[in-house]
């Protein structure tokens, strides 16, 4: 496995995202993941608008309000193909309401659906959005 340039990009985005979350302004290029249970999105920042193909990358997930919940899981699937990722990403809290996700790898070009599972007060909410890998 070789180093991934996207990881370095996202490391830079960590600082931006941390600052942005206080005012609930998404980091530049971040994608809003939405849940049917709330109008407040969470933001998924890959440091680049398009995900790389078959290269591991990191991302930052930022909650507008840390009280919205704790991040429990992040998955990604290709709806058109009916498969997910071949790897389980690791999640590490990186400040209040901010999480760093490592080990994401989209092994095919095309549309991927990212889903983040948050839990708060016994309630589980699933936030999702689609991103393109190419």
């Amino acid at each position, binding site marked *: *496995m*070789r*180093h991934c340039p996207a990881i370095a990009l996202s490391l830079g985005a960590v600082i931006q995202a941390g600052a942005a979350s206080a005012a609930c302004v998404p980091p530049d290029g971040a994608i809003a993941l939405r849940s049917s249970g709330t109008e407040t999105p969470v933001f998924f920042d890959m440091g680049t608008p398009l995900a790389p*193909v*078959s290269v*591991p990358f990191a991302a930052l997930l930022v909650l507008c309000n840390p009280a919205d919940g704790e991040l429990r899981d992040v998955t990604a699937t*290709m709806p*058109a*193909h*009916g*498969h997910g*990722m*071949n*790897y*389980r*990403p*690791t999640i590490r809290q990186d400040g209040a309401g901010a999480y760093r996700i*490592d*080990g994401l790898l989209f*092994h*095919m*070009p*095309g549309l991927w659906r990212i889903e983040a599972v948050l839990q708060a007060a016994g309630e589980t909410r699933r936030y999702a959005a689609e991103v393109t890998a*190419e």
Partner: protein
Amino acid sequence: MTGRALPALLMVLCLATGAGAEPPRLLLDPDEIAATLRHGPWPPPPPQDPSNRLSGNRDAISLGRILFTSPALSRDGATSCATCHRPDRMFQDGRATPAQARRLPRNSPALVDVAFNRWFGWDGRSDNLWSQSLLPLLNEEEMDMDFGRLKTAAGTAPWRPDYETLFGPLAYRSPEDVAIDISKALAAYQETLLSGPTPFDRFRDALAAGDLTAAAAYPEAAQRGLKLFIGRGNCALCHSGPRFTNGEFHDAAVGYFLPQGGVDPGRHRGLTLLRASPYTLDGSWSDDPDRTGAWAVRSVLDSHADFGRFRVPGLRNVARTAPYMHDGSLSTLGDVIAHYSTIDPERLHADGENILVPLGLSPADASDLEAFLRTIDSE
């Protein structure tokens, strides 16, 4: 320059070449140009493996080259790595399967560009090149050695002085040390087996540079084949990037029943062996204190669909590496194209990924696709 940035005139570019001559044309639309650019540039920077302290070491590469052809590393004294990975055949052997591989017959893969892999072997049982290099030495159907025999062989081999220059006195190395030393030298050598630029790369680089005149010189049949490859054929879903592989594992509807009975479980067994191995990037035999790349072995997921999945091979020099598929069951490029054209969905996992469908290629389509594939052979 990206394909999207190119002006619409690229839809069909006609360049005059003189009276009476058929003008070369560029047949790709902007989206196709963008997709084409993603298959380069080539070559990439030389590979380096931090888990192997010998990676890039000239003395180790030289020793690895000697070891690669050394029959001293086999129990029968007649077999070397080069027996199945022939330097004159892109480091494969041109056979469907090695004659001696009876229990698990798999095609000997070409080793050119192997250093860029994420996973090694058809089932990905190794996550690094040096541990993969160890396996044939120990496999009873290949070199059939063990750690003790390898150390004994090193003691009398003509390359012993070179070994001791790199690793110190043989007497101070344990049998397992010697086996790993040999594997890491073999890996250092194999990292140097890199393919050169191809006619496709010249085409791709011309597009990237905006040199449309040069790009239009790429044969039209190859352009039509490329359009199929990145378009209707969906080949680039798995054969993506500069190496034309995503480095992962898929079910290509090749039968996994073995001639002698039983099945080849593919990636399913590969993962079992990987996790049992002490020689992964996450293990103590790695020379990399940062455990670079170990995330993959730590986080790779199991799936029942792994059964019968095999690693997607890169396609550079594909025309020179027949026969094809993990079991060598398809003899020619034409056979491979016919396989995907008429693929039987019944042979795929019923609840696996929904990707492969019969392409229904016409003879002209198949000819174009093969013409394209032949342009990713090194010049």
